[in-house]
């Protein structure tokens, strides 16, 4: 897991929707420009991508061998 490089980590693997979404939004609310949030899930969150895109965030998705998906989110550079 590459979570060490994130400023905040949301582990949504054992949470039922919409909790991972809500926790990610709260974490994004708390970070400053330049900081990052890592969301760890067992699937790819397509609805979240759309929300991030429309609200000025950039993200990188990594698929790990154990089936987990890591999404590293940061403010999109102006």
């Amino acid at each position, binding site marked *: 897991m590459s979570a060490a490089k994130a400023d905040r980590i949301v582990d949504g693997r*054992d949470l039922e929707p*919409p909790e991972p*979404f809500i926790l990610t939004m709260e974490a994004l609310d708390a970070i400053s420009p330049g900081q990052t949030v890592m969301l760890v899930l067992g*699937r*790819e969150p397509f609805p979240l991508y759309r*929300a991030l895109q429309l609200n000025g965030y950039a993200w990188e998705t990594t698929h790990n061998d154990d089936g987990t998906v890591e999404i590293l989110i940061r403010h999109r550079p102006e």
Partner: protein
Amino acid sequence: MQALLSYDQSPPITAPFRFFLTAPVFGVLAGLLLVWSGPNAFLSRWTPEALALTHLITAGFMLQVMLGALIQVLPVVAGANMARPLLVASLVHAAITLGGLVLPMAFLTFQPGMFIFATVCFISGGLLFVGASAWAMRGIPATGPTINGLKIAVSGLAVTIAIGVAMSLGLAGWFNLPLIQLADIHLVWGFVVWGLGLLAAVAYVVVPMFQITPSYPDWFGKQFVPAALALACLWTVLGSIGFETSAFAVGLALAVAAAAFASLTLMLQKRSKRSRFDTNQHCWRVAMVSILAAISLWMASAVIPAVAEWPGWPLLCGVLLMFGGFVSVITGMLYKIVPFLAWLHLQNRGQGVLLAPNMKKIIDEQAMKRQMISHFAAGTLLVLAVFLPESARPAGGAVAVSQAWLLRNLWSGVRVFREHCRKIEMKRAKP
């Protein structure tokens, strides 16, 4: 922040909801038909009443929810957005609703015009849906088993409809077709490639997500639906050219594969991190046990002469598979999908004015649990009616009540959604 987020949720909520709310109406009609027909529906799987009943559940209840769910699932799990989803949903819904109503009437009256009308409805609705979803999925790489499974399931739907259309026109007198042989092919493609294929593709996502279980093993996810498709193709070809023994062996392999899916789902459920099962999990468990029971009965009919000679076994198999299996699992999923979608859309619509309500408050948990018990009771009475056809009427009454209850519960979710929308509008009007 979450209140400020906006995501142009696609498709609009009315696109899937119209299908979800129509499905229980077909369930109520199936119950009322059984009350009207009484024991006739349980004399054989070929009576007009049994055929009408089967299609009210499959081409009515099941098809409505499955298409509505696909319209919603494609963008969520595959990122595949259907073009003009509301227009597609409106046209497909109108076509399959009309077709779903007329087809059972055609079986009851055997009027050629009704078969032709139903055929036109299913061809137009089916073609539009398959075309729109295939277009949405074009270029989407099959990065996971769900996307691949969805593509195969939709192709299974196309084959099921095509065979159904040919049979319908045969019944209308257009062609001379081997209807009994075609009925088995229609049934295998409908229940296995389309039904079980879609169920498995969706299960890979929703079982771990909503039931907090480990994921399905990677090899199973990759192999199951493609293997089911390959076996169904082989079974169809071997059966059509008269290789009965080989076709039976392939059919057996298909049944074992379906049983593996149901058993694996039960094993995953046992590893759920949730301390108490909710309605969705109970529905899944009963559905998987029912599917296993149906498969066991089919296998027993193949090897035990006493079972094969019992005329009730195909009916019991049908009740276990359709009502115990698919109707149960669909009920459980509706109780997750409807509140989740309502929450998602309200969250988006609120736009910082008003937060969405707690998802668990959108449909009352106790109301869902009570309806689920009424559904299981109706299923038990249907099983009883196979052995005692005179109990068909009470069973039909129980089906109608449980389905009307399902409709009431789903509507309560819609009412919460509308009420919350109204509050958002009021807050916006008075900043």
